[in-house]
């Protein structure tokens, strides 16, 4: 299923992200994706790009395909916000991205980690009371293999720069 929505441009998404992170005090940034599936790994690559560049109010996690493995550390961090970054089949041009609330995961957006991610988000929201959002990025190629495609490398860099400006 594909999402039919109008994502106007990257500035709009950046605006949404800025609003969402307003008053954020403790933020978990969790990158989700398989290292064996090319662009699927973009979430983790963005988190790697943030390593050693963020304050102690930000907890970076490279979840790979097992976000549930980090439930306890996330809860212990007592976040106010949890941002999950993942490749998702948005039906948009390659490299486009959007900020999605967990409730919107029911329906058209097809994440490569769709069902488990929704349950994961729900559980984290209930146990921590944090605001949860998914930064979903349209991949070009999620077939077997290593490394991001060229367009996604640029998207990863762009989003890393945005987050470095917006994170507390």
């Amino acid at each position: 299923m594909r999402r039919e929505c109008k994502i106007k441009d990257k500035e709009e998404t950046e605006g949404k992200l800025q609003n969402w992170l307003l008053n954020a005090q403790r933020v978990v940034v969790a990158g989700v994706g398989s290292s064996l599936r090319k662009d699927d790994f973009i979430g983790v690559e963005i988190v790697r790009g943030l390593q050693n560049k963020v304050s102690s109010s930000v907890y970076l996690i490279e979840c790979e395909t097992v976000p549930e493995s980090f439930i306890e550390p996330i809860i212990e961090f007592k976040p106010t916000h949890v941002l999950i970054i993942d490749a998702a089949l948005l039906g948009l041009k390659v490299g486009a991205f959007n900020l999605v609330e967990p409730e919107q995961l029911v329906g058209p957006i097809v994440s490569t980690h769709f069902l488990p991610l929704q349950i994961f988000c729900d559980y984290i929201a209930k146990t921590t009371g944090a605001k949860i959002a998914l930064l979903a990025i349209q991949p070009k190629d999620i077939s077997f293999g290593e490394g991001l495609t060229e367009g996604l490398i640029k998207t990863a860099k762009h989003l890393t720069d945005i987050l470095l400006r917006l994170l507390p």
Partner: protein
Amino acid sequence: MSGPKTITIEPITRLEGHGKISIFLNGEGNVENAYLQVPELRGFERFCEGRKAEDLPQIMPRICGVCPVAHHFASTKALDAAFHVDPPPAAKKLRELMYSGYYVYDHTLHFYFLGAPDFVVGPDAPPAERNILGVIKKVGLDIAKEVIKHRAYGQKITAIIGGKATHPVCGLPGGISKPLTEEERQEIEKMAGSSVEFAKFTLKIFDDVVLKNKKYVDLILSDAYTLPTYYMGLVDQNNKVNFYDGKVRVVDPEGREFVKFVPSDYLNVIEEHVEDWTYVKLPYLKKVGWKGLVGGPTSGIYRVGPLARLNASEGMATPLAQQEYERMYETLGGKPVHSTLAFHWARVIELLYAAERTLELSRDEEITSKEIRNKPDSPGEGVGIVEAARGTLIHHYLLDEEGLTKKVNLIVATTNNAPAICMSIRDAAKGLICDGVVNEGLLNMVEMAFRAYDPCFACATHFAVGQMPLEIKIYDHEKRLLATLKR
């Protein structure tokens, strides 16, 4: 005496899964034959086809909620092999640490909740008392609290390393998802130390309640519960029991090494026989052959699980467990021991080993290393073998060039024991039921013959082939059978 008669035990109790025992008496009231039937059907080997390989370690634990850790790591190891990647030492140690924690809670569960009621309360005590509540009444609430506490410790260790207490998620091809912090290490070390003391205490209970009771020792050594077979288990390079890694060693009914093989060779050693009266497959040793449900050196039937592991090995790798291993064999007349009820004793010895190994690994200087992942290579075919609490567990995957699953074959612990369980039930029934005398206590003693194996029928019936046979019976509101539809 009247004509032939059938006695049915349904449902069978104090095990994981569902099953039914049918005992056929002849005209004289003696047991002619007995069958264990397992009606569950799951389908994992079929519905995993086409899925991404890296999803399998998360799907496979859903085979069972009792031994999910075993399936998780058998699957992860199969992917290590399929992607031609050897995890770094710290990753292997973390996996084994979590694995030892799983044994602490799983073996504790079986001994206190499933097996012990028959001995602590008595095999022919009223059924309403022959359970964990009856055990608590006899041993006291303080001991019950210790049981619950140490089961929780084992599950906490799984949650810390594996992400969740049940259905862990940490295994990745080539390693594990996250390192252990020093704080977590200390927490695990404390729980492990307490678990060693608890395991020693559990062995004392077994000693006081079972071994000092001549009636129970005679039962353990009786013909009704004795079955000479081959035995299989994972061993390390010194032929000592290892739950997580090593080679698979098989000994014959005399205790001599029959074969020792690496995981990828399992199909040269094991074959599976099918009977039309049960959904469980019946594995046997290929070189010896399938001779029916008979024991002895000319029958390819083998056993797995605690007693089999101890029989197939040359000792335990930790000092306290090794002492108990030596004591068991000295008491029961040497190796190998063929007494099915001795599985309970072997199980508590393994509980002690698991606790000691958890403590040992928690103190290993590499256990908090951050080097926990090596990069997988291109996908192919791989076999992963671990020792589930119930016995040898094999996951075999064939992947395509996209890393999608083409074929899955699983031989799970209880499946390995299926032929032996059938025979143990039959032999116990024949030994205990005579001249048509049947009562609830005797039927429970027939159930004790399978209970010692700690069977998991959800695991054993994981597969589906062809079209699932189906029978639907339609009853009216007064429970009169109106129609039967069959496929």
